[in-house]
């Protein structure tokens, strides 16, 4: 990579990452559905492997990307990651709390614990992809704001 020629954040790179993150959310949701339902053992293993490998692969990719970046990109990446991880940590609690409150006040007044636990698995399964989606978007917006007054 020629750092000097890299004039600004790449919208194409962001679009590719967002497409990957959205596909990852869908695949993680499907994998959690497979694990929660009676399917074959092979499907269970594949779903579990996907949930295991995808975040590890992303972590390795980011570690390599950081090594190849200069300090401005590293700084924006780290700050984006903080925001992404913060929301990802909040996400299951927001969804579960919101589900319970909406059941109690807007629904039949009962909490479906079994359904809640199944949803919790899905929420947790898609957490890494949500963190990636938000952190990449945040990093891009930071880099874009740095590049606004480019000569």
């Amino acid at each position, binding site marked *: 990579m020629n*750092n*000097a*020629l*890299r*004039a*600004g*954040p790449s919208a194409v790179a962001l679009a590719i990452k967002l497409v990957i993150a959205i596909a990852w959310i869908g695949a993680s949701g499907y994998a959690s559905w497979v694990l929660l339902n009676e399917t074959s053992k092979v499907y269970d293993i594949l779903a579990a492997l996907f949930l295991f490998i995808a975040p590890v692969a992303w972590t390795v990719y980011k570690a390599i990307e950081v090594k190849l970046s*200069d*300090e*401005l*990109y590293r*700084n924006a990446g780290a700050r984006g990651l903080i925001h992404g991880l913060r929301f990802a940590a909040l996400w299951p609690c927001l969804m579960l709390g919101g589900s319970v409150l909406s059941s109690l006040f807007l629904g039949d007044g009962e909490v479906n614990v079994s359904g809640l636990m199944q949803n919790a698995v899905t929420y947790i399964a898609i957490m890494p992809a949500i963190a990636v989606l938000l952190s990449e978007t945040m990093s891009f917006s930071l*880099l874009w*704001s*740095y*590049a606004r*007054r*480019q*000569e």
Partner: protein
Amino acid sequence: MKNTVRELRSQRGWTQAELAVRLKVTRNSVNAVETGRYEPSLTLALRIARLFGEPVEDIFLGRD
């Protein structure tokens, strides 16, 4: 933080891209430092000072 990187670069007739090559950073980084949007690390600030042959505090704090 205000700095004199842009003035020092202009005095030497370098473009942002040329300075970026000398500093081994992206042009985006040079622009962000010049406009004061990004405060460089100590390492980069020292590299800039060494390249221009000026004390780091003169470049990033001004002479006043």
